[in-house]
């Protein structure tokens, strides 16, 4: 049977657009590799493990940025995870039916706030607050632990982690809520009928049922934190150092690229920044791919 002309045109066009996505990704990967050729050739694998970042003498090592990226994201996750799960449990199990849609909407709107606004809020509200009230207290009582040692200056790893955590809470909370909602009433009722309390139903039935989906939600949140640029650049301090202290300034891959790309004058400098981008791309891709796999497997099982 011959397709009508309209159908054929649509099919042709949508195939073209769909292939363009694949092509785009391929081009990005190719360009990243090509752009970082010079730096890969010069530093090899040492690029990943050395800590000097010296544009004047053209010595580049990525470790402080990799460290800053991963550690700030891990801090974000540690803060965001319990809060997000709490929100999701509230929205799917505890809140009165009538208020669920409006609270859900507000959570999702948080994800729509432009990151520069989080950054401004972070810089003008959160950082002074951390510097004046939170960090001095932490350093007074826990200062002997290296994590809380050092000078409380407000901007730094802790501020970066907190701002990131606020930005990934909507992602983790709304996906977790969806996952909890897929747990059939049948099993929850079985729990109630055995004399489980609401909390026991949540912890013994809802959570185990959602395990792999939650792992996926967490990793998607983590992936988002890894690539976030603007807000974290404004509060993390932008110093390529590796410190055990949460108060010390740090630097992420996304931030250094954003800050230095326009002033990178030599070919090797540019190439090193592009190699950083390649590293970030690889880390994000791996996390997102695994996360999506886990989330979708959960949805299929239902």
């Amino acid at each position: 049977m011959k397709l009508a002309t309209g159908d054929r045109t649509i099919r042709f066009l949508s195939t073209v657009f769909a292939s363009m996505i694949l092509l785009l990704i391929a081009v990005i990967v190719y360009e990243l590799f090509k752009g970082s050729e010079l730096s890969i050739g010069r530093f090899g694998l040492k690029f990943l493990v050395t800590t000097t970042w010296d544009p004047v003498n053209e010595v580049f090592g990525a470790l402080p940025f990799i460290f800053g990226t991963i550690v700030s994201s891990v801090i974000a996750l540690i803060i965001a995870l319990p809060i997000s799960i709490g929100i999701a449990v509230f929205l799917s199990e505890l809140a009165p039916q009538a208020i669920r849609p409006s609270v859900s909407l507000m959570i999702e709107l948080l994800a729509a706030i432009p990151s520069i606004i989080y950054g401004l809020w972070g810089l003008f509200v959160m950082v002074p607050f951390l510097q004046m009230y939170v960090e001095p207290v932490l350093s007074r009582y826990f200062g002997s632990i290296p994590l809380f040692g050092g000078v409380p200056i407000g901007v730094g790893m802790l501020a970066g982690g907190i701002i990131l955590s606020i930005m990934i809470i909507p992602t983790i909370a709304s996906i977790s809520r969806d996952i909890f909602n897929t747990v059939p009433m049948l099993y929850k009722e079985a729990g109630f009928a055995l004399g489980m309390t609401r909390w026991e139903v949540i912890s013994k039935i809802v959570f185990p049922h959602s395990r792999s989906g939650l792992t996926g939600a967490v990793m998607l949140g983590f992936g988002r934190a890894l690539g976030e640029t603007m807000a974290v650049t404004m509060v993390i301090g932008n110093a390529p150092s590796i410190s055990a202290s949460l108060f010390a300034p740090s630097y992420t891959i996304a931030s250094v690229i954003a800050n230095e790309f326009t002033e990178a004058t030599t070919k090797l400098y540019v190439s090193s920044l592009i190699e950083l981008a390649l590293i970030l791309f690889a880390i994000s891709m791996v996390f997102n791919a695994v996360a999506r796999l886990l989330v979708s497997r959960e949805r299929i099982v239902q």
Partner: protein
Amino acid sequence: MAKKLVIEHLNAWFGAVQAIKDITIDIEENGVTAVIGPSGCGKTTFVRCLNRIHEVVDSARVSGRVMLDGIDIYSKTSDPVLVRRRIGMVFQKPNPFPTMSIFENVAAGLKLNGIKKKDRIADTVEQSLKNAALWDEVKDKLFKPATTLSGGQQQRLCIARTIAIEPEIVLMDEPASALDPISTARIEELIQQIKERYTIVIVTHNMQQAARVSDYTGFFLLGELIEFNRTSDIFTNPIDKRTEDYITGRFG
């Protein structure tokens, strides 16, 4: 015989829809009480009110009194969690916990009751599975997921899970409706065996089943209790015309 449950003027709603109306009925201790009636007449809703699981559904509401050994389970001081530990329930659709093994399913309620000793749990699990006529079929795969069992086996597992915590009353909502005749026969046998120790309320669509397993039968229609009597009387000598029509298959 003693009255285990005294139900007085029980009403239940879903939002504005009233599902059962002014039910007053006594449940005898160590007896089997059957609840029959056409689809949608409120049988499920009725038994779900007896262990306070009706209120788990949003917008659900109950009024009236359900006296368990003389104390109203709906009084302000009564804790639904404790009520449900005394009044167990087997659902229409088998619902073993899919994330747990066969063993864990039966042990789930024991742990809630604070029983921690491993050998005591293992003994109770074995005994409950034997009582539920499932032990021989699962004893070699206790630690396999519960979902690897057939529907009939899953339902017997749910019965084992329910009786493991030794409730005083077991509510069964069409426990055999999804099962083949052999599994059904086993569950009926099981009811006969365990009724000395428990008080049983069973919902069924199957008239023969009600006649076979129960001592008392209540006939529901459109949310109302039409007739309640000894099973032998209901089936041989119904008083209400509608009961007669229903059990002789003239409607329903």
